[in-house]
């Protein structure tokens, strides 16, 4: 694999937050990593180590204090519709219906007609199996349904890169299983977005289930402890010996 195959690349990125007392909290120190084309990248690490911060940097929401972020070979300056982030707790607007919440992602686009936008929203409502909930309000939905609305909103812009921040953290095992299947399906299906996915998760089984490669981060400031390629066939069998071995391996790297 040569360099040009990276969809997104972080080079020597460092970031910190200034605390109230005037000191700076170093969150990321000289981090370099790449997200390849057609790759499903998993990131795991202890709580508070800076995973959400890394995703925000990848999304162009935060400009790192130092280092470079490149997307498709050119420097990433701010956000782009080509990269979508699904927040850890998806911010749905309580006063907008499901349809309006998803359409919010397209509202500023002037390359699409209203009709095209409507069709796109309908298409993604169907894909996340929420047909019929168009005019429901977020508070009328279950946690899993809210998460799927957020997923539809993240995908409706046809992004090349989808960033997922703990997409399963608030879900029961069954719901998270079906959501993870949906995510995998969209990513595998070449006619649908996205090209590549970066997923942060505490749930190691889920990451092993989905990822091509897992990056294990150490505690703050975030550094890469290890990189584990997962070369298992898809669909993966949770009960297979290989699966157990991989989950164990990642577990022992973290603890």
């Amino acid at each position: 694999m040569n360099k040009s195959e990276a969809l997104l690349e972080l080079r020597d990125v460092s970031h910190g937050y200034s605390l109230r007392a005037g000191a700076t909290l170093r969150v990321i120190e000289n981090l370099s990593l790449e997200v390849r084309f057609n790759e499903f990248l998993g990131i795991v690490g202890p709580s508070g180590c800076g995973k959400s911060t890394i995703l925000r940097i990848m999304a162009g929401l935060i400009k790192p204090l130092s280092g470079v972020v490149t997307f498709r070979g050119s420097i990433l300056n701010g956000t782009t519709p080509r990269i979508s982030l699904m927040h850890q707790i998806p911010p749905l607007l309580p006063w907008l219906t499901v349809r309006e919440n998803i359409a919010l992602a397209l509202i500023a686009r002037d390359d699409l007609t209203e009709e095209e936008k409507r069709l796109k929203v309908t298409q993604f409502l169907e894909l996340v199996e929420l047909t019929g909930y168009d005019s429901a309000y977020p508070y009328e939905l279950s946690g899993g349904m809210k998460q799927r609305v957020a997923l539809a909103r993240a995908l409706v812009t046809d992004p090349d890169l989808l960033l997922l921040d703990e997409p399963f953290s608030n879900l029961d095992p069954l719901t998270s299983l079906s959501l993870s299947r949906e995510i995998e399906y969209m990513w595998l299906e070449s006619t649908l977005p996205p090209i590549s996915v970066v997923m942060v998760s505490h749930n190691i089984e889920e990451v092993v289930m989905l990822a091509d490669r897992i990056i294990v981060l150490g505690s703050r400031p975030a550094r890469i402890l290890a990189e584990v390629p997962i070369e298992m066939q898809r669909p993966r069998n949770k009960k297979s010996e290989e699966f157990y071995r991989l989950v164990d391996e990642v577990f022992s790297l973290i603890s």
Partner: protein
Amino acid sequence: MLWEIITAVTLSWARIAAAIILSVSAALVVGIYSGISRRVDRIAIPVLDVLQSVPILGFFPIAVYILAKAIPSVGYEIASIFLIFTCTFWNLAFGVYEGARSIPQTVLEVAELSKLSHTERLRKIYIPATFPKVADQLPASLANAFYFLAASEVMALGEAEVRVAGIGTLILRYQEIGNYEGIVLGILATALSIAAVYLLILTPIISYSDKYRFDVIKPAAGATPSLLRGLYSRFKSIQAPLKVESRRISEAAQRLLPTQFVNVKYMRSDLMRLLLIIFIVASLVLLVPRIYANMDDVWAAIMSVAAAGLRLGLTNVGEALAYSFLRVLACLALMTAFSIPLAYFMSEKPRIRASLLPALQMLAAMPSPLIFPIISSLFEAGALTRELGALLLMALGSIWYVFYSTLSGFSRVHSEYLELAEMYKLSSVQRFRYIYIPFATPSLVTGLITATGGAWNTVIVAERLGEGGAIFEVYSPGLGKMMSTLAEMADTAGLVFTVIVMTVFVILVNRLLWRALYDYSIRALRIHEQV
């Protein structure tokens, strides 16, 4: 003269501080209990509405009279503090009320599940959760206290006029004797003291209160240019000891807060009902014989008020009321048109906000006598500008309620929603329409409710303005103009009639329009069901 000014400023501040401490304590008690309990809500909020709508200038002389009789030594001081209280309390009370009502349902459920006692709930949830509202409203209260400073330091008691010592009366005296140097120095000293209080007390309180917000705009850290960051951290290190101090003060304040005083059982409905019954029975027992004994007098008084109504002409009063109402509405439109864009601009540009806020605070706190000359020149110029002058006078008395409430509403916008807007490249207008406005609507409505009360109160002064012997009045009819004319002719019955008309009208509008709008906005925006 300098010494005289410094003493006066200090005295005024002492009174304002007392009034504000009183206002905050009362606002916490009233606002929180109305926010928690539907029952208290149903009683307290209408009572607040009524009290806020009663023209203060109308019942102030009575209060002064009673206080001066009861405690001759400090009666005037207390009366003055009381008047300041009446300009600082309402926005705080309504702000706390709004804060208590928009505590997320989940938080209340946690409290329910963990079986927190009422005292614990107050200490752990309600006071901390409404503290940011207090912090947000303090600047408006302070501004108002100064705006009405001169009015609150001068008390008319029948023929006699009593002035308590303070910067308001001092500037008034300088104006009378034409001591312009004194006026300028006095204003400078006031402005300086306000700036100092703003930077050293209010700013730390406001930034400390951020800790208690459910949603805060987190500063985009790391994006600060390094020079600014250097300056900023130096500023922070200067501020650090102040922070500790302010924390200690607020901890002390928390200990002092009358949580013990508000007895837990007060909330129990049976006790509440019992108290209410005792109160009603007692007042009946006390009042009925008296009323009965003086039945003729009471009857005569009622008749004369009714007669005054007929004498004034119901259509005349109605017309005057309609004109004043239009003025109040125009004034609200003016205040909204000013506040929303400015508050939005400041929320989008936190750095400009930081430097603009103290300046605005000083502008807001300019005592009203200072702008009278401008207003009266407007009044001299012609009919249209006369209307403008009246509007301006009304607006200046309460615009800060609207402005600070809007600002506080905008600051409730969670940073993740802003990231969403950034990701999907929402334009300023879209950001405003889909995110900021819905988030801020409850606060905006609260601000407007308070401002309406303020505007009705200033109608009396604004429609008919006395400045240095001359009297200017708007050409078109107005209830305020009518009241002030009646007061001058010592037509008590007529005055009482118009006060009743105004109060009833304001309450009706509050109940039918504003409260309904508030409840509607809370429901329509599903604030309680926040995801």
